[in-house]
């Protein structure tokens, strides 16, 4: 975006101050995320750059917060070698939380992606009845405030069979609250809108005549789906799945309301850490999460470009 040749001096001044304003806004966007990375290597328990850090003295930096992350909750953090790592794997709080986050994230993503992709295929058919209303219902978990969703789930998951009493049954079926299944179902619900949005967006440019061509060449519907449709929409499905995974991986309100002590996830552990006694160890977790989100963002960007390439949609 260059200054046009006919621009007046005033317009030139404005043009450069506009660029400066934009730079300042980009700084506002990115600085809070970048600044925690050096702060997490602070040798002192402060949230600011110590004089030693400012003069780039190696004494001012340390890995102590990363170490405290690993050893927090361990029974014998002074052990050596194999005993140390097996203790960390089994007892360290943050490792437990990471395991929970990954298990819950994986299964809720699986549920959301399978159901969401099927539904997106139905929704993008022209003959779908009540398309708009159904779409609005399926997207609503993203719009309804999380605290309301979590409150509703809290009551429902405490006694999922209460619903059946309306129809005259009174079975006992235990609780979903405080179980992995409960948290997985809740996170699947929250991730579904993202899968629907990304997959239907991919299907907008989908050429239905490819399906007809496959059928006319003798492929049955299943073969057509797996050999023709699926490879074309796969980038959209994967990026929807990543969105769903991130939603689950970052979710804390539903976990606060329906998870038990066994389902502590990383965000839940962070929430506790922030509310009780905030220490630079939180910044170490935050740094690791930022690196994780950079990896995810890169994947999604690559997928988006690939999708545009194979669908023949050139970037505008």
């Amino acid at each position, binding site marked *: 975006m260059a200054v046009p040749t006919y621009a007046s001096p005033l317009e030139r001044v404005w043009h450069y101050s506009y660029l400066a304003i934009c730079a300042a806004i980009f700084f506002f966007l990115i600085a809070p995320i970048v600044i925690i990375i050096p702060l997490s290597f602070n040798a002192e328990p402060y949230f600011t750059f110590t004089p030693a850090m400012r003069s780039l003295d190696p004494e001012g930096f340390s890995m102590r917060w990363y170490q405290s992350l690993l050893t927090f909750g361990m029974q014998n953090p002074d052990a050596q070698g194999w005993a140390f790592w097996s203790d960390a794997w089994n007892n360290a709080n943050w490792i437990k939380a990471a395991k929970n986050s990954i298990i819950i994230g994986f299964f809720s993503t699986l549920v959301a992606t399978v159901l969401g992709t099927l539904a997106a295929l139905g929704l993008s058919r022209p003959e779908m009845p009540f398309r708009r209303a159904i779409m609005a219902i399926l997207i609503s978990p993203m719009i309804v405030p999380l605290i309301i969703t979590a409150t509703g*789930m809290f009551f429902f998951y405490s006694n999922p069979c209460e619903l059946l009493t309306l129809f005259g049954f009174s079975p006992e079926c235990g609780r979903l609250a405080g179980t992995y299944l409960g948290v997985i179902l809740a996170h699947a619900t929250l991730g579904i809108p993202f899968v629907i949005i990304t997959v239907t967006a991919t299907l907008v440019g989908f050429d239905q005549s490819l399906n007809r061509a496959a059928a006319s060449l003798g492929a049955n*519907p299943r073969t057509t789906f797996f050999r023709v449709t699926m490879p074309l929409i796969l980038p959209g499905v994967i990026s929807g799945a990543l969105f769903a995974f991130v939603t689950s991986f970052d979710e804390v309100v539903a976990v606060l309301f329906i998870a038990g002590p066994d389902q502590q996830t990383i965000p839940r552990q962070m929430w506790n850490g922030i509310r009780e006694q905030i220490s630079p160890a939180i910044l170490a977790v935050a740094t690791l999460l930022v690196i994780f989100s950079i990896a995810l963002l890169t994947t999604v960007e690559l997928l988006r470009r690939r999708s545009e390439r194979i669908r023949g949609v050139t970037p505008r």
Partner: protein
Amino acid sequence: MANAALDPHAAIATTASGVGSGTLTTADGKPLARALVRSQRRARRRAFLLVLPLLAFIVITFVVPIGQMLQRSFYNDGFSANMPQVSAWFAQTERGTPPDDAAWAALAADLVATAEARSIGVVGTRINYDLPGSRSLFTATGRKLRDGLEPPYREALLEINEDWADPQLWSTMREASTPMTANFYLAAADRTRDTEGNIQQVDERQQVYVMLFGRTFWLSAVITVLTFILGFPIAHLLATLPMRKSNLLMILVLLPFWTSLLVRTTSWMVLLQQQGVVNDLLVWMGVIGGGQRLQMIYNQTGTIIAMTHILLPFMILPLYSVMRTINPSYVRAARSLGATSWTAFRRIYFPQTLPGLGAGAMLVFILAVGYYITPALVGGSSGQLISNMIAMHMTDTLNWSMAAALAALLLGSVLILYWLYDRLVGVDNLKLG
């Protein structure tokens, strides 16, 4: 997927053989119109069957739980189910009737029964919602009732506690004697009922909810305007730069979008602390003295700054996707016809960005109105929103009906906005990243 035999186009193609015989028929002799209707119906059913599993899933895990929760906002049988006799007396008498001997006998019988069943706490809690401080009356009376009660009941109860004769208490019990109640909604509007059942405002120092709703909408509006002011130049820059450069800069917008909410909130807590980086910088630059560090967090300022940062991508992305489609030759044409750059922007460019602006503003506002985590962590007491009040009633005061009534009001306003968004923008136009 599309089976050739079911396809409407295929059905028409096969009619060629039937054209000569008067009415149009398919190859196997059925009337064309009926075959077409049937195949269309089958196609509709197939599409619907693909959506059905997810629809059922969402209804069971999302719509029904929210419905169940909302039911609690107007249905609470904590009193009526446990106190059947006195509830029956209330049903038979007019509002304002002073309690007679039958009423005292019914009350005494119910209290003895609940004290034995150890459910008197539930009853007291229900009354306590409408008449704060009355729970202890019930529990203390319950402890003395274990051995039963002798007539005359009025005197016996008054001997345990004078407060049993309080007309306000009787009027509250009358309100609670039917499980259906609008009292939680009245309370959410800072209203209450007096002994005659007239609606009136609660004490000035107890009025919190209307103010909180007002603050929630006001702060959301402020945040929406701020995201617009910050997002518009960025979206414009990204939309007018060449694709390669703008893709690179887009990463700076998308990275915050993909970063954990808690991480972003934490970093603002760290930055804005009194001993934090921003205050250090200001002192170092000499803007403020070392003794007058700014309080930028644990108040409304903190909530506004952190939420603006978090919601900014939701404004930039819709604006950007609309600005991309604006043809630059319109502005050039305006300039060549003599418009100044400001006039060209104001009369030609800006009106074309309105669809994106509308979409972004509504999305940001809807998300801001329901925010919970960020205000809970950085809001202090002056930056709390209505969501935090709902959470407080859920986890601390355990007044679930009140939480449900507040949630219903919040949900109602969000759904109206969502409906508007759908009408103006369309949910199928929602895009991510």
